[in-house]
């Protein structure tokens, strides 16, 4: 059972995301956050992948709710959204997939999307339905927290962790503001640019994450451009965890029609999770 995450970000309620990240932190263990676009190639596959990720040691699954115009995403996730939309994915369908995943495992689930599909659904209804289905948090890529504090409150009132983003361009004052508004963890976008794989991590990553951690008393997970187990481990070492998205999404694209889809993608997720968990 989960209940509300209340109060400032420093308090950790029994929300699954917050609980998992805190338990890992207490054990001196880094967290591995995986991303999948829900509905790519179809929602049945998403349910199977999620359960396989749970078994593979993934700590949190970000489930992308497909949107037609994902301006913060690179080509890999854009293309996966287009495939998912063509296959008929809707926010309602994704929430139903969450319910099916939740019936089978306790993997913490973070819905990752843009504002407009949530507005179209109705913020209150979305918060209520997502929480009732067993989702644990919401990350809205185009909602800086000051734009709609009431919306964050509505999501939080249903026990959903509202994960905020910080970027390399974020000022010191704003880092504190974002950390205060974030629940579960604070997501550090480690480079300028959209989602997508890159060959190298930024050289000043550790320094930047140290600055961010000074402002945040919740865990900091690092993402954008992480494409190998080595990079995931390196990024996680700088903070509390690493997020891998496009790399897994591309594997889904390559193996979407194959009967081995779940096995192949889960194996890669396991390699990433093992690398992150081996960071001492």
């Amino acid at each position, binding site marked *: 059972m989960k209940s509300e995450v209340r109060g400032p970000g420093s308090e950790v309620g029994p929300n699954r995301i917050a609980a998992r990240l805190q338990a890992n932190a207490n054990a001196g263990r880094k967290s591995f956050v995986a991303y999948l676009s829900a509905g790519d190639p179809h929602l049945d596959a998403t349910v199977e992948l999620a359960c396989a990720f749970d078994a593979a040691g993934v700590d949190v699954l970000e489930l992308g709710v497909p949107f*037609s115009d994902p301006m913060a995403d690179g080509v890999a996730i854009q293309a996966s959204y287009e495939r998912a939309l063509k296959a008929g994915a809707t926010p309602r369908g994704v929430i139903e997939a969450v319910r099916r995943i939740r019936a089978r495992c306790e993997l913490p689930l973070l819905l990752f999307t843009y504002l*407009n599909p949530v507005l179209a659904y109705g913020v209150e209804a979305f918060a209520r339905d997502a929480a009732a289905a067993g989702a644990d948090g919401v990350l809205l890529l185009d909602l800086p927290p000051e734009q709609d504090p009431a919306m964050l409150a509505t999501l939080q009132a249903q026990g959903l962790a509202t994960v905020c983003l910080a970027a390399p361009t974020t000022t010191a004052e704003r880092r504190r503001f974002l950390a205060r508004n974030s629940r579960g963890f604070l997501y550090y976008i480690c480079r*300028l640019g959209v989602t997508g794989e890159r060959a190298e991590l930024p050289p000043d990553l550790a320094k930047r994450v140290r600055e961010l951690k000074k402002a945040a008393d919740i865990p900091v997970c690092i993402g954008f451009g992480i494409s190998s187990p080595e990079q995931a481990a390196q990024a996680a070492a700088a903070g509390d965890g690493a997020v891998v998205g496009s790399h897994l999404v591309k594997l889904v694209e390559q193996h979407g029609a194959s009967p081995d889809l779940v096995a192949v993608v889960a194996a890669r997720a396991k390699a990433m999770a093992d690398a992150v968990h081996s960071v001492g």
Partner: protein
Amino acid sequence: MAKPAPARTPDRHGRFGPYGGRYVPETLIPALDELESGFAKAWRDKGFTGEFRRLLADFVGRPSPLTFAAKLSKETGRKVYLKREDLNHTGAHKINNALGQVLLAKRLGKKRIIAETGAGQHGVATATACALIGLKCRIYMGTEDMRRQAPNVFRMRLLGSEVVGVDSGTHTLKDAVNEALRDWVANVTDTHYCLGTAYGPHPFPLICRTFQAVIGQEARKQILKAEGRLPDALLACVGGGSNAIGLFHAFMKDATVRMFGVEAGGRGAQLGDHAARFDGGRPGVFQGAATWILQDDAGQIQGTHSVSAGLDYAAVGPEHAFLRDLGRAEYLRCSDTEALKAMHRLAETEGIIPALESSHALGRLDTVCERLKKGGIVIVNVSGRGDKDVAEVARIEGVAL
């Protein structure tokens, strides 16, 4: 009927009532803060505004004339005046905003300009401003629009800009905006995104309106000189809505002046067949702003259709949404066919070939005139010239060139 707008919009959060705002990825927030304060400082600096005005006069050729349309006036029984933005250098109102923003970018120390374009007019204007002011320039354009507006693609390249085709989504303006935003997120420290219309996250709608307001400021003086009184109505097409807000702004407090915006009615009333956001859309958030948007039940942004690439956009500028709520401006729609007819009409009666975008405003001239008393005065914004559309219109009408 007409009510004055509140004294100051947008508010300090960039909002026009419930519309506008700043809905962007976190990475862009500091750049928007910098742009907001940099713009405010520049606009208070006589050095900056003096340079802007000098370029508008010496380079763009402003003020643009206000032409009395004698035959249209006779036909309609109203006095029809045309604000001739088509006579600007580069052939449309877009240059006012592009020059202002590129000047601003240089002042802010940016090395590189990016822009989106639909009809190609904003792309050409930005490429022109960059050539003049000496900044590197890359233009994003949907591949479908590149096909429709091939001469403008070549013009941008002639001006030394790079044109990048966008093949994602619907291959039109909204996809070019997404791509420009992605570029900006990646290169935000040295790049200015020269957004082409009164749209996007705050402060873009404010900046664009400020640079375009010269249209209405001139028109107001010109009509007072010609007629000794204010007009009864203003008429302009609305894609994002920059030429309309540029014409309207100086008249905002003149409660007797009615304002009409015309959206693209396309080829029908079905979602996907038009770009009439106020008719077929509903409020939402898209590409940085809260406004009226063409979307499906699940909040997915829908494809649009218009014969005019410059109006082919799923969302309307946030200030227009607010003016409509207030009842300060009224919004109509004009179909592809009506716009084409209006293009022929102006060409044949007044010797002016208007852009297909502007033809949408002209396509509702009779509707607006019917709402005015006999002898009433209407100013129509001829926001651009139709040269760029000649080949596409010939193709639609089955004429081999």
